[in-house]
C-alpha cells in the first residue's frame, strides 16, 4: 500500500481523503489541527449553487451538482440536501440587462442551468419578495444542505473507506526525503508519505510558503446571521445581482443570512470576529428584499475563515517546489458546493498524476507572470 497524508479536516480534506481511500492501493491518514469541521466547512451557509459561478468554475460546479443530486450514494447520508432552487433577484432594469447578458454568456458555453425569469415568475417562486424586484436568474435544481451534517457524513464515509483521522495534530513543516517521499513534521512527531494534500483552508498558503512556494492569497472572514424561527415563507436560497446577499430559510424556520460581508480575521489566533458595522449591510439588503424579516430577531451571528486568491478562484494543483504535495485551497466563499468534485479531482492527481475532471484552470501557474 502507498501512503498518503491529507492536511486539514474541512470538507476538501475529507472529500480528498475519501476519494483517495476508495482508490485501490492507497492508505490515507488525515491530520486536523483542531477538530473536523472547526473552520469554514462547519460554519458556512450550506449553499449548493452553480448559479452565478465564475465561468472557469462552471464545469467543475456542474459535476459537483450531479454528485449532490446523488449525495447519499457517495457518503451514505443525504446531508440535509434539498433541491429547492437558487434565485438571484434583479432589483432594477440595469440588473435585468446584466442578467440577460450573463445567461447568454453561460448558454454560449453550452450550459443550460441558468435561466432568466420575469417579475411574474419571481413572485411565484418568492411570494414574500419585495415589490421592487423585477426579475431574476434561477437555477431550479440548485439548493442547500446542512453544513455540519455534511461534514459528519463525509467523515463517517471516509473512516468507513479506511481513512485514519487524527484530530488535535498541527502540521509544522514539509520536506522532501532522500527516498523521494515527503516528511511531514507535526507538533506531535513526524509522519512520512508518498503523497500529501494541502487542504488547510485559510492556513494552506502558509504551508505552501514553508516549502518555499509563494502563492498570492488573502483571507476572508465572511459573516453570517441566524434569526429566530419564523413561519415558512421562502423555499429557494436567494441572492441578488448587484448586492452581496445569501438568504435562506432552514427547515427549522430560522433564516440564515450572509453574502460575504467581511469581519475581522486573526489568523494566528485562529479566530475571526463579527464587525457589526459591516454586518449591518447584510441585514439591510435582506430586509429590503424580504421586508417581512425586518422585525425578526437576530439570535446569533458568526464568522468563518478561509483563503482567497486575488481572482476569487481556488488553487488546485501540484506544488512547484515539493513534488508529491498537492494544493487544494482558496475556495473564496464558495467551496462547499465544489467539495465532492474537487476532492475527487485532487485524489486522482495524487494517485495518478492526472485527472479528467476540469481543474486545469486552477493551477497556481496562473499567477506567475511569464518572463
Amino acid at each position, binding site marked *: 500500500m502507498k501512503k498518503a497524508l491529507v492536511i486539514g479536516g474541512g470538507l476538501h480534506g475529507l472529500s480528498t481523503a475519501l476519494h483517495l481511500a476508495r482508490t485501490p492501493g492507497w492508505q490515507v491518514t488525515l491530520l486536523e489541527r483542531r477538530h473536523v469541521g472547526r473552520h469554514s466547512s462547519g460554519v458556512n451557509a450550506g449553499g449548493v449553487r452553480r448559479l452565478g459561478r465564475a465561468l472557469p468554475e462552471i464545469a467543475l460546479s456542474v459535476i459537483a451538482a450531479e454528485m449532490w443530486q446523488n449525495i447519499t450514494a457517495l457518503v451514505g447520508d443525504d446531508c440535509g440536501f434539498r433541491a429547492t432552487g437558487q434565485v438571484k433577484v434583479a432589483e432594477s432594469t440595469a440588473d435585468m440587462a446584466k442578467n440577460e447578458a450573463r445567461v447568454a454568456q453561460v448558454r454560449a458555453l453550452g450550459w443550460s442551468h441558468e435561466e432568466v425569469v420575469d417579475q411574474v415568475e419571481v413572485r411565484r417562486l418568492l411570494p414574500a419578495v*419585495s*415589490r*421592487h424586484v423585477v426579475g431574476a436568474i434561477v437555477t431550479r435544481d440548485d439548493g442547500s444542505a446542512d453544513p455540519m451534517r455534511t461534514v459528519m457524513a463525509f467523515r463517517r464515509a471516509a473512516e468507513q473507506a479506511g481513512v485514519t483521522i487524527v484530530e488535535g495534530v498541527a502540521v509544522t513543516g514539509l520536506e522532501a526525503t532522500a527516498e523521494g517521499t515527503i516528511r511531514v513534521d507535526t507538533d506531535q512527531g513526524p509522519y512520512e508519505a508518498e503523497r500529501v494534500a494541502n487542504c488547510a483552508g485559510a492556513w494552506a498558503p502558509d504551508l505552501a510558503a514553508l516549502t518555499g512556494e509563494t502563492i498570492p492569497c488573502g483571507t476572508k472572514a465572511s459573516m453570517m*446571521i441566524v*434569526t*429566530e424561527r419564523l413561519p415558512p415563507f421562502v423555499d429557494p436560497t436567494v441572492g441578488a445581482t448587484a448586492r452581496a446577499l445569501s438568504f435562506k430559510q432552514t427547515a427549522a424556520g430560522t433564516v440564515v*443570512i450572509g453574502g460575504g460581508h467581511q469581519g*475581522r480575521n486573526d489568523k494566528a489566533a485562529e*479566530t475571526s*470576529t*463579527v*464587525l*457589526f*458595522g459591516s*454586518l*449591518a*449591510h447584510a*441585514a*439591510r439588503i*435582506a*430586509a*429590503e428584499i424580504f*421586508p417581512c*424579516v*425586518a*422585525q*425578526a*430577531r*437576530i*439570535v*446569533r*451571528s*458568526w464568522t468563518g475563515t478561509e483563503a482567497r486568491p486575488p481572482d476569487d478562484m481556488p488553487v488546485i494543483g501540484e506544488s512547484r517546489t515539493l513534488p508529491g504535495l498537492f494544493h487544494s485551497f482558496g475556495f473564496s466563499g464558495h467551496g462547499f458546493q465544489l467539495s465532492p468534485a474537487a476532492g475527487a479531482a485532487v485524489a486522482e492527481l495524487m494517485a495518478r498524476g492526472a485527472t479528467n475532471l476540469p481543474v486545469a484552470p486552477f493551477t497556481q501557474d496562473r499567477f506567475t507572470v511569464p518572463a
Partner: protein
Amino acid sequence: MSVADEWTAAKDGAAPVAEKVDLLVLGAGPAGMAAATEARAHGMSVLVLDENAAPGGQVHRAVEARLPAKDDQDKDGAKLAAAFRASGAQYRPGATLWAVEPEGKVFWSEAGAARSVRAERLILCAGATERPLPIPGWTLPGVMSVGAAQIALKTSGLVPEGAVWLAGQGPLLWLYAVQALAKGGRIAGIVDLSPPGGLRRAQPHLLRALKAPEYLWRGLVWQRQVKRAVQVIPARDLRAEGEGRLARILVDGVAHPADLLLLHDGVVPNTQVTRAIAGLTHGWDPVQRCWRPGLDLWGNTAVPGVMVAGDSGGIGGARAAALSGRIAALEAGRALGRITTDERDGRAGPLRLLRDRQLAPRLFLDAMFPPLPEAAIPDETVLCRCEEVTAGRVRQAVALGCLGANQTKAFTRAGMGPCQGRICGPAVHGVIAAARGVQGGEVDPFRTRFPTKPLTLGELAALAG
C-alpha cells in the same frame, strides 16, 4: 430612495450622536451616574447609555418620580440623579447596548434603530441580575421573580393582588416584602428556602460586618416587620402547580392556594457584556457561586480601555457602586491625561476608604445567604425556558460526557434560544457542576456572543445608513 427608507426613516426620531467620545458609560444606576458625573468634573466628554426610561438603575429606579425623597435610599438616589443631570454628560435613555468591538466601538439600539460610537474608554456599570430559582412549575403564568415585582412597584406603585406568595431567600426578598406591605399590599406567606445554619456560617465575618452595622440592623428590622404581618414557612421543597396558570403551591408536599408566586435567590453580577468581549477574563466566586470580571483596584479589566464598576463587578450594593463608579472615572481621567496620577490617587484615597466600609458586611451576607444547591433541583424542572430543557436532560448530557455549558448547547440546545442563556445560564452551569461533582469554576461558563441583547434585522439594518 429605496424600500428600506419606509421603516428606517420612520423610526429615526432621536437626537444625533457624536462619532467619538472620551468616555462611554453603560448604565445609569448609582455606579454609572457617579462615574459620569465625576468624569465630567474632569472635562471628559461622556455618553451614558441605559435601557431604562429614566436614571436610577435597579435600586433608585424612577427615583425622580418620587420627589421630594422620603427614605434614605431615595435621598441617595435623588442626589445622584440631580448631579448627573447637571453634569453635562450626554444621557440616552431607552438605549440598549448590544456589542462592544475592539478599539472601543460600541453599538446600541434606540427607538428601533441601531447606532454606534467610538469611545476612548468604557466604564461598564450593568448592575446585577437575579439568579434564577428554577422549581417545578416555574414557567407557569403567575410565577415571576421578586425583582420583576419590585420593578412594577417602583415604576408604577403596583402591588400584587390575590393570594401572593414569596419564596426563596436573600435580602431583596425581605426588602420587597417590606416595600409591598408599606404600600398596602397583602402577602399570603413567605416560603423560606434558605439552608439552615446561616448565622453559624456567617458568624466569623460578624466583626468586620459591624464596620457598617446599618446593613445588618436594617436586615433584622425588615425580617421582624415582615414576620409580624406574614406567616413564614421554612421549607426545602417547593412546587408550583395549576392548569395553564398558577393555582397552588406545594410546600414540602402541603398545598396552598396561590394566584402569584414571586421567586428569589439573590443577585449575581451581570456579566453578559463582559463575557462576550474577547480577552476579558473572569474569575469564579466560590461563595456566591458566580462569575465576576477580573478587576484591579481601579476597575480596569484585562482588556485595555475597558473598565467595570458597580455590582456588575461584584455585588456590593448601591453606595459601594457609586463609589466604585467615581474611582473608575478618576482612573479614566488619568489614562486620558485629564488628571495626573497624583491627583487621581489623592482624590481616590478617601473614596476607597468609604468603599471599604460599604463592602465590610459583604462576607457576612454572602456566607449567610449562599445560593440554593443546584443538586437539589428535581429532574423534571425546566432550566432553559426558551428551548424547554429540563435539569434531568442536562444531567443526562453530563453522564454522556458533556463537560461544560457550551457543550450542553450541542447536546440539548439549552441556551440556544432567543435569551442566549441570559436567564438560565447560572442554573445550567450550577447543575452541570453539581452533576460532575466539581466547583463551578471548573466548568466553562456559557460563552456569550454579541449581540448580547435581542436585536431585530431592521434595527441592525439602520446602521448601514
